[in-house]
């Protein structure tokens, strides 16, 4: 059983504790936060024995095998370096780091010390993400020509309200502000299909009315981007206003095209229909309905096997990460992909800054 410690006791820490326990492979031995009351609330609610406000002290006393870092991203380099230097493997919440150069510091140190690092790019491990992984492995889509990714968020939801009502919220200090906190999710799905020679075009703007607060009003809420790497392109739409709030990916290949909906947990192939005349066009909708039906049945099966938790994807990712640690299995998120995500974010931030 791995001894695991968590640094950062905000709301995402609950998900880490629950999913670590659900894997059955780790025991959360301690939690740490600079704010003692936040340490207390997580430890009391989750029944965790070790409580610390100093990460170094926690590492010295508990000697964990793995440290999960769930703090705001500006602290990731320092905390990850501390944990790696103490001999721990590290699992980092997204955004992995503020910049590509920061992410390189963490990845290089891990490599030098022979330790594993991963990041919570959980959506690649949702049921449709895992199915896409299988399709790509057997080359069912052919060469990937284009990816179109949509990601929505709700500024009136709990998280949106927390950000929009507090000009001091850490999101306002991110180089890419609100988008920086979701771009990891968006780009993690596409970086495997592009190289490090990516060209970037970006358009960001604020669609909501001005509030009068200068900090809040510098926050764009709509982002469009276009990436090109060799013969592959990616378009991205990140929106605060589109409804319903979207979380989708369309992968266009030379053999086939698939559409993934991460909220509905479905993956369907586009219909390739060649029957003639109006009569022939009666059938595709039924073919699609059947495909969605199969997805539904698969989801019911997952639910009945208790594999359909909201954070099931994080559970899959953690299992693979712990496999990498304990069985020297392949990294669930290759370090090169982490670095590429951060590099593209740097480019997008530069593009946004050039506009403003």
């Amino acid at each position, binding site marked *: 059983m791995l001894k695991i410690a968590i640094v950062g006791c905000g709301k995402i820490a609950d998900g880490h504790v629950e999913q670590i326990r659900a894997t059955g492979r780790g025991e959360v031995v301690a939690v740490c936060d600079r704010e003692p009351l936040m340490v207390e609330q997580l430890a009391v609610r989750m029944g965790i024995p070790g409580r610390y406000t100093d990460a170094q002290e926690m590492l010295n006393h508990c000697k964990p095998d793995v440290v999960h870092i769930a703090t705001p991203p500006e602290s990731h380099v320092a905390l990850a370096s501390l944990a790696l230097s103490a001999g721990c493997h590290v699992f980092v919440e997204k955004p992995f780091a503020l910049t590509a150069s920061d992410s390189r510091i963490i990845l290089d140190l891990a490599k030098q010390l022979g330790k594993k690092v991963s990041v919570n790019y959980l959506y690649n491990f949702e049921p449709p993400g895992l199915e896409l992984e299988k399709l790509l492995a057997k080359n069912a889509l052919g060469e990937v020509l284009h990816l179109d990714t949509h990601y929505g968020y709700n500024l009136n939801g*709990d998280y949106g309200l927390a950000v929009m009502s507090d000009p001091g919220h850490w999101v306002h200090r991110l180089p890419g502000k609100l988008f920086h906190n979701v771009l990891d999710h968006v780009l993690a799905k596409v970086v495997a299909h592009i190289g490090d020679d990516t060209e970037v075009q970006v358009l960001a703007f604020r669609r909501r009315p001005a509030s009068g607060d200068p900090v809040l009003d510098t926050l764009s809420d709509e982002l469009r981007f276009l990436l090109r790497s060799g013969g592959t392109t990616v378009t991205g739409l990140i929106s605060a206003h589109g409804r319903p709030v979207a979380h989708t990916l369309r992968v266009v290949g030379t053999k086939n095209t698939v559409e993934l909906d991460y909220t509905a947990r479905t993956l369907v192939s586009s219909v390739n229909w060649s029957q003639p005349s109006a009569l022939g066009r009666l059938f595709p909708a039924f073919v699609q309905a059947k495909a969605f039906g199969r997805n539904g049945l698969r989801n019911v099966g997952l639910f009945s096997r208790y594999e359909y*938790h909201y954070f099931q994807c994080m559970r899959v990712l953690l299992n693979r990460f712990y496999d990498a640690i304990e069985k020297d299995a392949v990294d669930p998120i290759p370090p090169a992909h982490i670095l590429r995500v951060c590099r593209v974010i740097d480019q997008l931030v530069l593009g946004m800054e050039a506009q403003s």
Partner: protein
Amino acid sequence: MKVLVTGAGGFLGRRIVESLLLQGARQVRVHVRQAPPRGMIEDLQARFPNALIEIAQANLLSRGALGALVNGVDCIVHAAAGMKGAAADMFANTVLTSRNLLEAACEHKVARIVLISSFSVYQAAALKKGDVLSDATTPIEPVGVERGAYGYAKTRQEHMFNEFQREHGFESVILRPGVIYGPGGGALSSRVGIRALGFFFELGGDALLPLTYVENCADAVARAALSAPPGSAFSVVDDDLPTCRAYLKRYRREVEPMRRVPVPFWAFRLGSKGLVWYHKRSKGQLPAVFTPYVVDSMYRPLRYSNEGLKSIGWVQRISTQDGIRTTFSYLKEQMRSKT
């Protein structure tokens, strides 16, 4: 006496300011996180031209930066709290904010502090059917984790408030409102039931619904702030409480029709045991929002006392019948404007 009201732009907070002014306070500092609701200050100033009404903007999460907020006040009514969101957010917005405010208040020697707590802190699971839940006899939860995220945050807040009081000796008063309702508030408390799958699952049955109309609640807070003895604590509920079933029946008649599924107490309790079992077996696939402890605490038919409030001169200004009528016509209007 200058009174600071935190969370004064909120559903209850703005009514507390009004009640304080109605009951004779002449200097009120209105705390808001960003800006007061449109027209609030202008309206109060027009109705109470002799009152000094100040606006103080502050983020209560900013530890060490609340000196200006509390400086020069004689009494604080602390109504700001986290009402929704994840457990950690609710805790931060309730407990951290209170710690920060109390530190500043103690540093600036504020003489009197009134905490708006909640019914959710009462250790009600031990009571039997028909018992009276009372500020005089019902203890508060020692920790509160079993009451869920909100109950835990409010319980920790109240214990911390008492710790500060013991250390610094300010005059303390605590109010624990039941279900606060009124125009601008929520439609149906979870004590009545929950909506799911196109149905309304009626969970409260014949249990009394511990309502307090928002203006009556605000009157109670103002009365306690201005005249309650130090160290006192009050349950805040109105008279003539309806049963959950009667309240729902009227809601369905006056606001919106709903397909209801009555769930008897015994079935609800059995179901909560099943939910806890499934939660554990499925490794949390469904959250254990209703546990036997929560069901015993919130849904067992009890009686409620407001004798403590009456002993300090509180009188219910809006009758329960009028309060429900006003609330339901507001909700009906809201539904019309949405469609």
